[in-house]
Each structure stands twice: as C-alpha cells, then as structure tokens.
C-alpha cells in the first residue's frame, strides 16, 4: 500500500510538468535541487541589494552633511577676502562704484525695457535671444555711501553697462557707522586746512595711477588716530566704568541703611551719617570723573581733526574724518600679500572685537565668549548632576517599576521641545529662584533685578536641564558596561559600596561619561530657542567677565570674576539676529555664514578636546593586552 502511495500516477507527472523534457528520475524528485547559480541567485547570495541600499543611504546622508558644511565653509571663508572695486557707467548715465557681491541671470520685465531707448532695448532683447537660457546677466554691486545715496546695494544689468573700469585709486572704507564708503581721495585736511592734494585727471580724478600723496599722508597718520581711539575706549570703558561702580556702590550702601532704617533696625543718626558718607563719596567720584571727562573731550577734539576729502563715482565730494574709519585699502592696487593682510586683519577683528552697526559688522568676540562660558557652566552643572542621578538609578535603586518609569520619563525629557525648557527656565530660575536671591541678597538694588531676570547662569542651568537626559542615559550605559567581575573583585578586597563606585566603577565608566558630556556640550552649545527667553541678548553691554585691552596683549584679557547674573551674547542667537532681524540683510548675509562657520568650529573644537581627553582615559583604563 505504502509503496503504491509513493508512486506517482504517470499521467499526473505530465500534467504537473508539461515541459519537463529531462525529468529527474522519480526516486530523486523528492529532494528538489536548489538553484545555485544564475543572476538573481548570486545577487541575493552576496547580499548586494542590501549593500546598495545601506551604502546609498549612507552616501545620501554624507552628501547632505558634506554639502552643508562645504557651503558654510566656502561662504564663511570667502567673506573677508578683499575683492576689487569696479566702476560702471549705465545707459541712464549713472555712475556706480563698488564691490561685486553676487551675480545671477534674470529676465528683465517689459517695464525695464520700456525705459530704455529703442536701440538699447533692441540690444537687450538680442542679448536675451542669443543666450541659451533666454536670460541676461546682472550683478549686485555693493556701492555703499549710504548717507549720500540712501542704499547700500545696486543691481546692474549686463546690457545696461556702457563703460566699466577698475579705478586704481578707488578706496574701500570700512566705517564705524553708515556702512562702507567707496571713493577716490582728493585731499587730506587737518582742521579743514589742506595738507596734501592728489593731481586731478581729465576723468574726474578717478583714473590716476601715480603715487597718491593723500594716501601716503593717510597711512602715516592713521596709526596715531587708532591709538587715540583705543585710549578713548579705555577711558570710557574702564575709567568711567570704575567711577560708575563707585557711585553705584555708594548708592547701594545708602539704600541698605535706608532699608534697615525702614525696619527700625537703624537709628536716625545712622541714616544721617550714611547720607553724609554717600554725599562725600559721590563728590569724590565726581571729582575723579571730571578730569577723565576732560581728557575724553580733548581726545575727541584731537581725533576729529584730520579728515579725507573724497570724491564719489558720481562726482560728489565728501569729507570723511579719520576718526570714522575702521579700515581702508585701495582695493585695485593690493598685491596678494596685502590682500592676505586685509583678510587676516578682518578675521582678527571678527574674532577679537565688539560688533558694530547693529551686529552686521565688526567682531563677535562677546558672542564667542558668551557661548563658551555658558557651555562650560552648563557642563559643570549638568555632568555632576547627571552622573549622580545615573549612579543612583543604576547602582543603588532596586530595579522595578518605579525605576523603569523614571528611566522612561528621563528619556522623554529629551524629546520635549527646547523652547519649553526656555519657558520653564524663565519662570522657575529667573522669576522664582532669581527673585528670591534678589530679595535676600540684592535688596538694595531693587526694583532693578540682579538675578531676577535672564542671565548667563540661568541660561546655563536651563540648558543643563535640557541636556540632563543625554548625560544620564550615557552614564547609565557606561555604568552598566563595567564588568561585574571588577565590582566583585573590589568587594572581595573589603571595599564598601561607595569605595567600589568611586575607585573602580566611576574611573572605568569615565570614557562613557565623557561621551555623554560631549553629546551634552554639542547639544547645549548649538541650542538657541530657550536662550532667547533666559538671557541671550542682541547686544550685551558687558561681558560676563570683565575684560581689558592691556598693552602688549594680543587681545583683551579677562580681569575680573564671573558675573553670573549678566545677560550675554551667543553665537547661535547672533546668527538669528544678524541674519533675520537686521535692517541691512544683504550686508549681513556674509556675516551669517562666517558666524555659522565659527559656531561649528567652536563646537567641533569643544568636542575634539573632550574626545581627546576621553581617548587618553580609554588608553589608561582599558589597554587590555593579552
């Protein structure tokens, strides 16, 4: 019976496999041979579709990241390179002079062409027709001279240019106010009296290529003016600041006595004495103030004496006092080393000085400093807290529902929008904790808040809260990765739990904890939204640490303790502010790239430092040689 059942009916074979020419012998059919060759087979066998899929995803990610970084690096590095100045004459007879900042192709509207003479319009149309894309070229010229023209930029269409040249003595002026100025030197005056004059040429003095006595005079006198301006800055910031602090402390001393008197803890006599003392101190400060003010006034007069008489492209003249000039260079006459010099000096200014002109020019030193200090305070706060919390969760707490719930809550905390942390920080740190601190320790300066407002400390605390989950999770993982055998070894030596944790577990987990710290720093340094609520400002009057420009130093030197209550500037917020809140957005755009480049570099530098420390720890703790 069984033999019969296994034997297939002859007809059935043919019905199932009508094309089976060489059917395998019946006794072998039970074991169907698997295909081991053919295109589809090898493809799957070698897993190639998955290689392509996974590899493609990686390439896509890398391309996007690399593209963004390249854009930022390219644009950011280019910003400060001095470009030549060009002077164009348009069909309408306008003369414009400036730096080409952008180029693109566009289709001029009919109203543009209608404004041209028939000949010119025909030529423009012809240019459009011959071009492959039917568009004409145009350039954005940074023409500056805002107080004369009312604009910083001009679009110039290619077909509208009748004449174009590079005037050899066109000078680019970066000024303290009103943006850039482009002009050709005519004369150098001191107190309005001419000291030097350039030879004039038929084309209005714009084309002369021989040495310029005015420029020589300018380069000779500018260092002295710079020195005087630095001196004035020092007097204003440091000396007057000192007097102001004395006045403030005298006022606070009196206010303290007044407050005590109100509560009946100081006698009328005390109050009267305090009033007298305060008046004395105020007088003394005033006496100190006057000579400083006089010196400043003297400096001001001195600084404003020398001036340049300049001629613009459209033939107007303008007197520019040397005091208004930050940097000036004859853009078309620069050799490569000189260009490099301008480039580096701009970078130096960018990195080391204060912003000018609503942050669109000058430096970002306060923002760099604010970002670094805030990130460091944040790290100092978040790492110990996170590590302690993780230690409790992993080492002390009994595993159970509560611990799991806490762990989930911590992980969820990482998903809360950062602005919510900002609101919490404002409400809790600034208004509740800060107000308490103010009423307890800074009562005399109320109603002006000291800690009861946004400040670098509260910003750091808010970000610490924000980055806490990162540290806790990383630390927990690092603790869990410490081998049980090490703990047991320690206990077997008679160590207590805390000794084991402090001497064995924590050092062993340190690289992992450092990883958490690195992630937290990267997250914190790049965060902007919550900072807007808890202390980052567009322009901070003072740095969180007092700085001084000391003679002989490369840059400003910190000379005071940390003022954790002060508001601060932050690179991330600076990018937002300059890029999107600035009245002169075209001029600010390069600054956005440069600042972004700087922020990325800064975060990378912070991370690399931490990674370097971590790898050193790793080498120390786990060089397992077998």
């Amino acid at each position, binding site marked *: 019976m069984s033999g019969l059942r296994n034997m297939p009916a002859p007809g059935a074979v043919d019905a199932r496999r009508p094309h089976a020419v060489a059917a395998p012998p019946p006794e072998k059919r039970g074991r169907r041979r698997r295909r081991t060759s053919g295109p589809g087979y090898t493809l799957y066998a070698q897993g190639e579709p998955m290689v392509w899929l996974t590899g493609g995803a990686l390439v896509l990610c890398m391309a996007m990241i690399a593209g963004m970084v390249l854009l930022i690096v390219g644009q950011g590095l280019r910003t400060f390179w001095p470009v030549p100045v060009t002077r164009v004459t348009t069909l309408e007879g306008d003369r414009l002079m400036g730096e080409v900042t952008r180029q693109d192709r566009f289709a001029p509207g009919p109203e543009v062409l209608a404004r041209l003479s028939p000949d010119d319009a025909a030529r423009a149309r012809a240019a459009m027709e011959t071009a492959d894309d039917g568009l004409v070229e145009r350039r954005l010229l940074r023409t500056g001279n805002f107080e004369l023209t009312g604009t910083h930029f001009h679009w110039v269409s290619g077909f509208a240019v009748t004449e174009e040249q590079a005037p050899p003595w066109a000078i680019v002026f970066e000024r303290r106010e009103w943006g850039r100025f482009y002009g050709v030197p005519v004369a150098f005056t001191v107190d309005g009296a001419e000291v030097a004059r350039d030879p004039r040429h038929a084309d209005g003095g714009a084309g002369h290529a021989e040495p310029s006595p005015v420029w020589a005079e300018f380069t000779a006198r500018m260092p002295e003016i710079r020195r005087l301006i630095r001196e004035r800055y020092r007097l204003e910031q440091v000396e007057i600041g000192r007097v102001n602090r004395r006045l403030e402390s005298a006022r606070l001393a009196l206010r303290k006595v007044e407050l005590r008197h109100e509560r009946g803890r100081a006698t009328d006599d005390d109050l009267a004495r305090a009033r007298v003392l305060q008046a004395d101190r105020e007088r003394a400060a005033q006496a100190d103030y006057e000579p400083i003010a006089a010196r400043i006034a003297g400096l001001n007069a001195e600084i404003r004496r020398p001036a340049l008489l300049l001629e613009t492209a459209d033939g107007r003249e303008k007197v520019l006092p040397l005091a208004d000039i930050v940097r000036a260079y004859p853009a078309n006459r620069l050799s490569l080393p000189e260009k490099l010099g301008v480039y580096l000096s701009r970078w130096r200014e960018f990195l080391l000085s204060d912003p000018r002109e609503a942050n669109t020019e000058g430096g970002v030193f306060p923002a760099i400093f604010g970002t670094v200090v805030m990130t460091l305070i944040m790290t100092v706060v978040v790492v110990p807290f996170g590590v302690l919390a993780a230690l409790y969760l992993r080492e002390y707490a009994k595993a159970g529902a509560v611990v799991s719930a806490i762990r989930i809550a911590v992980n969820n905390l990482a998903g809360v929008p950062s602005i919510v942390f900002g609101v919490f920080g404002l409400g809790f740190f600034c208004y509740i904790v800060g107000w308490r601190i103010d009423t307890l320790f800074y009562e005399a300066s109320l109603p002006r808040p000291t800690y009861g407002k946004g400040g670098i400390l509260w910003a750091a605390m808010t970000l610490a809260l924000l980055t806490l989950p990162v540290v806790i999770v990383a630390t927990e993982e690092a603790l869990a990765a410490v081998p049980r*055998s090490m703990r047991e070894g320690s206990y*077997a030596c*008679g160590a207590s739990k805390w000794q084991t944790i402090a001497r064995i577990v924590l050092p*062993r987990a340190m690289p992992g904890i450092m990883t958490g710290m690195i992630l937290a720093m990267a997250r914190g340094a790049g965060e902007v939204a919550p900072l807007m609520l808890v202390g980052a400002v567009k322009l901070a009057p003072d740095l969180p640490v007092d700085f001084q420009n000391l003679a002989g130093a490369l840059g400003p030197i910190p000379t005071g303790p940390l003022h954790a209550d002060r508001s601060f500037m932050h690179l991330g917020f600076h990018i937002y502010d300059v890029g999107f809140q600035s009245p002169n957005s075209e001029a600010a755009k390069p600054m956005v790239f440069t600042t972004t480049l700087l922020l990325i570099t800064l975060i990378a530098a912070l991370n690399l430092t931490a990674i370097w420390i971590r790898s050193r720890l790793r080498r*120390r703790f786990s*060089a397992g*040689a077998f």
Partner: protein
Amino acid sequence: MTHTAPVQPPDRPIEMSGRERILDDARFAAMARGESIACETHAALAGEDTVLEIDRFNLHYGTVRALYDISMNIPRGRITALIGPSGCGKSTLLRSVNRLNDLIDSVRITGDMRLSGDSIYAPDVDVIELRKRMGMVFQKSNPFPMSIYENVVYPLRVDGVRNRGTLDEVCERSLRGAALWEEVRDRLQESALSLSGGQQQRLCIARAIAAEPEVLLMDEPCSALDPIATSKIEELMLGLRGEYTVLIVTHNMQQASRASDFCAFMYLGRLVEYGPTPDMFTNPHLRETEDYITGRFG
C-alpha cells in the same frame, strides 16, 4: 602533616589498594530525588584545627537549589581543594564564604558558616570587615583600571592605610609572594591592564594576599595560565601553607593532588567525600570519587 610527593596523575588508572569501595546506589537515588546526602568525611580530619566551619549550608538561586546541606570544616593553615564536575556548586560555595553571593538579589541561604568561631551569616555581621579577613582570586583575572601598584595595595587603601612606607613594603612583599616582583618592579606605575593575562592573574593573587587574610579563596586561579605560571602559583600556595588557609577550586586533578593537603569532592550541589588528598587519590572511600578522579565520569 607534611606534604607528600605528587601522587598518581589522573590520566592513569589508580592502583587499587585492594580495599572494597563503598558502592552506594542509595546516594545516587537520594540525589536524584533532590535530597541531601551525608558526606563521607575521613577520620583524619578530626585532628585538625578548624578555621572555617561550614554548618549545614544551603543555597538557592531563586527557586533553584545550588547547595544541599554542606557541612565541612576547613583546617587552619592547610590547602583544601574543592573538586567536582562543572556546575556542581564549587564556585557558589566559595563565594558564599565571603558573602559575595549577597550581590545577587535572588540568592537565599540557610545554615551558617563560622570563621574562627565568628558567624559569617549572623544578621549583625559587618560584611565589609568580614571580607577584609579573606582574600579571593577569581577564575578570570580582574585587575582594576589603575596602576599595578595601586592594584596591589587596594585592600589597604580601602582600609584607610595612607602610610607610604607600609604600602611600598606590602606591595613588594605581595608581588614577591605572587612571583611577579621581578617582572614588574620597574613598571609599578604602569596600568595593570598592560600586563599579560598570566601576569594579571598573579597580580590578582598579589592583591588577594596583600592584606594578609586568614583565608585565601581561589576559584580556578590557574585555568588561564601556562604550565610555568601554574607551577609558580602552586609553589606560591605551598609557600603560603602554614601561614594561610587556602581554599581552592580546581578542575585540574594533578594540581589538586600535587598542591593540596585536603580534598573535597562535590557533586550536584552535595559534598560527597572529604579527606586528606593522598587518601582521596589513592584510597577513596566512595566509588563515585574514584570514578571522578580517574576520569571515568564527570
């Protein structure tokens, strides 16, 4: 009792002394039923001075019983070897002596042990003080992530010893004791993790003897070592004899026969036979012991 020359290696059949082994199927039947059995303890143990007394000790991992009514006296100043097939509870017993099993939440115990008469499992025992009276060497070396020097003096450090002279002296003495001094004397401040596996294990031994413990617990200390390092450690154990009590778990019958004074055979969580090593190897009372020692089962 002096140590005798190495007895029969286990790979050759042991010559029968002519005496009949006790063939007790009842024991197997009892074990199969999950009951505890009485240990066959040789009379020679009676004359020894006991340092560690294990008194009807039971241990459960959760619902799994790992040790059944173990009762044995570990003689002071001697080397006692625990042998038995894998999974029979040797490590569990050893770890119970210094209460390392406390770290595992699911462990429950009954019975008691006494170290020089002091109860180990009484409720008011200071476990940390207790562990300081013992040293332990683990099967897998576990040097700490710190320098060689700090590794060795770790037991003293956690005890609060700060005196540099004392620490230096202990470090050298312990490293010499563990036959490692010559190799590391010039690199004491280097990371312990830069040592080779065998050196790391000897470092762990140095650490275990640094605080001069009353009892040294060793869980297969030589399983990862080459014959030379193994013989060094055996020499070390023999050198410690008299001063220290050593309780060593080993799978190496040669080692047990060469380097121990007493030998305890465990099986399925029970202590089966316990006696002087020469007797255990040449004249075991039980058939199971003989079978295990000669390699016929286990």
